[in-house]
């Protein structure tokens, strides 16, 4: 266990180093940050002075050394637009993104498990066919289209839900949450549903196929033959065993979901990290872009490590229960 962790940590360090190198290398190809800072009539001379001040004219290695020296001390540079440390800006906006991802995750869990289980238990039922058809469509519709259609129906035509932003938030120990006000919750609905719509079809299918597999396994047949109540067989024996792959896939997908937030947040003007990143690219806010890329790299490294650890922890347990059943 300990050697595994040390090995993992070492790998993670190498990965982070490579990411920082790449993130930093792309900077020069993103455009000229000065253009976003000055008016169009400002002379080239004036712009050169600013470039010098910002250290943009230094050679790559000088810039990278300066960056990495500061980075290991926790300083990823100041955002040009926000005029505050980039890491601080990202952490600020992270609250909104995490709430969005959390809301979407709840929807995915609450919806995909019952539907997946149902369609596995009743494979020939008409409702199953509807669910399967719906999930095929869901997989092929891009998230921004889903978002715009939802917005059109529920905010413009019906007027039930707000169409942009986070609404009212409450401050709980420095965390601004939208989960505790009615307004905040209403604002969460559409973005969360849109974000969930990307993963939902995948999870319904995953639950269904895992459940089908479990249902055809020996221990389920044995349990049924033993005369156990069918509900007990389904939900206590079969369902438990479908959870493991769900956890693995889910863990990895949370990373992907953070990436998908870029589209969802842009459509709903959600003040989170995804929208922040897109805006940073538009404004050529290079310190912020670099910090974000490193940050997302970090999320992937961390979630993968945790999933690997969990798998190691859960795996033997699975074997034991498998034998016991």
């Amino acid at each position, binding site marked *: 266990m300990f050697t595994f962790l040390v090995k993992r940590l070492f790998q993670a360090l190498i990965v982070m180093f490579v990411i920082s190198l790449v993130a930093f290398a792309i900077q020069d190809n993103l*455009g000229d940050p000065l253009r976003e800072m000055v008016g169009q*009539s*400002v002379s080239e001379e004036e712009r050169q002075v600013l470039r010098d001040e910002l250290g943009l004219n230094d050679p790559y290695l000088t810039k990278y050394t300066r960056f990495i020296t500061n980075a290991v001390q926790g300083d990823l540079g*100041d955002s040009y637009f926000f005029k505050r440390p980039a890491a601080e800006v990202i952490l600020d906006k992270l609250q909104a993104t995490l709430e969005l991802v959390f809301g979407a995750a709840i929807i995915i869990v609450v919806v995909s498990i019952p539907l997946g289980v149902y369609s596995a238990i009743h494979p020939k039922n008409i409702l199953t066919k509807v669910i399967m058809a719906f999930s095929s469509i869901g997989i092929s519709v891009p998230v921004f289209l889903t978002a715009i259609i939802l*917005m059109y129906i529920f905010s413009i035509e019906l007027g039930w839900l707000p*169409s942009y932003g986070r609404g009212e938030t409450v401050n709980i120990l420095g965390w601004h949450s939208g989960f505790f006000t009615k307004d905040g919750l209403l604002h969460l609905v559409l973005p969360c549903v849109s974000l969930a719509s990307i993963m939902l079809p995948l999870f319904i299918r995953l639950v269904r196929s895992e459940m089908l597999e479990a249902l055809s396994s020996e221990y389920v047949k044995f349990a049924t033959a033993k005369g156990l109540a069918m509900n007990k067989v389904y939900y206590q024996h079969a369902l438990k065993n479908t959870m493991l792959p769900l956890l693995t896939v889910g863990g990895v997908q949370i990373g992907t979901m953070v990436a998908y937030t870029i589209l969802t947040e842009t459509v*709903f*003007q959600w003040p989170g990290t995804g929208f922040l990143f897109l805006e940073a690219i*538009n404004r050529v806010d290079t310190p912020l872009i670099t910090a974000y890329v490193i940050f997302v790299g970090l999320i992937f490294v961390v979630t993968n490590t945790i999933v690997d650890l969990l798998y190691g922890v859960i795996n033997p347990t699975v074997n034991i229960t498998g034998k016991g059943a």
Partner: protein
Amino acid sequence: MKFLKSKLTIALLATGLSFSAAAADITVAYDSDPVTLDPHEQLSGGVLQMSHMLFDPLVRFTKDFDFEARIAEKWERVNETTFRFTLRKDVKFHSGNALTADDVVWTFERLKTSGDFKGIFAPYSELKKVDDYTVEIISSEPYPLVLQTATYIFPMDSKFYSGEMDGKDKSSIVKHGNSFASTNVSGTGPFVVTSREQGVKVVYERFADYWDTNSPGNVDKLTLVPIKENATRLAALLSGGVDLINPVAPNDHKRVKSTKGIELTTVSGTRLISFHMNQNSNEALRDVRVRQAIVHAINNDGIVKRIMKGFATTAGQQSPEGYVGHVESLVPRYDLKKAKQLMKEAGYEKGFNLSMMAPNNRYVNDAQIAQATASMLSKIGIKVDLKTMPKAQYWPEFDKCSADMMMIGWHSDTEDSANFSEFLTMTRDAETGKGAYNCGYYANPKVDQLVNQANAETDPAKRSEMLKEVEKILYNEAAFVPLHWQDLAWGAKSNLQVDPIVNALNFPYFGDLVVK
């Protein structure tokens, strides 16, 4: 009863005692929010829009490019190089300090140190205090555009911005990193900022001691939210989440117009969209007949109708209507037959190859305009190799004039014709900074001379003649390809009286907004 009521209203109106409309609380959605609260940090639309809410200029533009008194109540030209402004005596800053000539002098000195604004004030040698409520602005040479530049002087509270905070000068202008002035503000404007979360919202509340008590405006609280996506901004208006939006994408105009309870307000804009024809990189473009052929091959009207959905004014010159250099007769010259004829005369009957670049997220429908232009040019045998890219990548390419035809949009900071030429069509000169955006490398000493003369001519009639002459020369020599002037649009709930407060400059005077 009805009769009595209306009589009463008339009587009240007559005595100037009309019912003051109930205070209003509105939400406005723009595509971005101001990057700073410092009016001198960046010369951009967003910052100027903010300046008109938190500050007041000495004078401001009216809808038809005339001037209206704000902090200055009177002005007069003393002589060729001196201009005198008399200031109002009843103006209070948000901090409670009273405005005097010292604040105006202080503001001018600060403007001279701002990288973005000093260009506008380069013609002046000093602004001096005559007495507490009189200032004189003195130019080194006779200068005609004093009032235009005075619209950029938003007096700042010198006492509030002087001194030190955390060891740093409170007045310093910082482009990157924090400064006192970028987060603290004391102006004279109709609003004060009560809260600001960058990129999320700015809350403005009416300043209780605002000097302009005649302003009909009744907005008590105005929340500005940035909404980047056109579709989301429109949805916010249609769903009632916000009261006013800008811009409205051309494709959405119909939708806004046809929705009950929502109005679309449009104004002809002054931002010129054009192409430069690079005579340095493509030999064919040195021939005036080829340039004429290109101008004749482009169907401005078609672009405006099809791509801009009618939401632009076709252009045959730099100056839009209302500018001193505007010449009525210089209209777009679409004529395919003549274009082909000109190509033949120039010896390019078989056409030639040409590279073209345009941004894809800077101007309204910029990439589509470039594509349409490329296909129009193919009709006279010119094969266009078009590249479009995000503005962040486009500007470095533009600085190098990388392609034979480069798209450029230009808005004159002084709302004056000469400004277009100074940046776009005068001979490139690194020393004077003239022609800094001239990617056509068009050079004509006559044009240079006329513009320079016009910039020292204080007689408006003579000046207008000179600038009109410039437009004619550029037209006849096909110095560049004018496409259109972008229009502006606001979508708002019907109870907002938007029309009186908006203008071609896109600085709505929200202080005067009436909400019924």
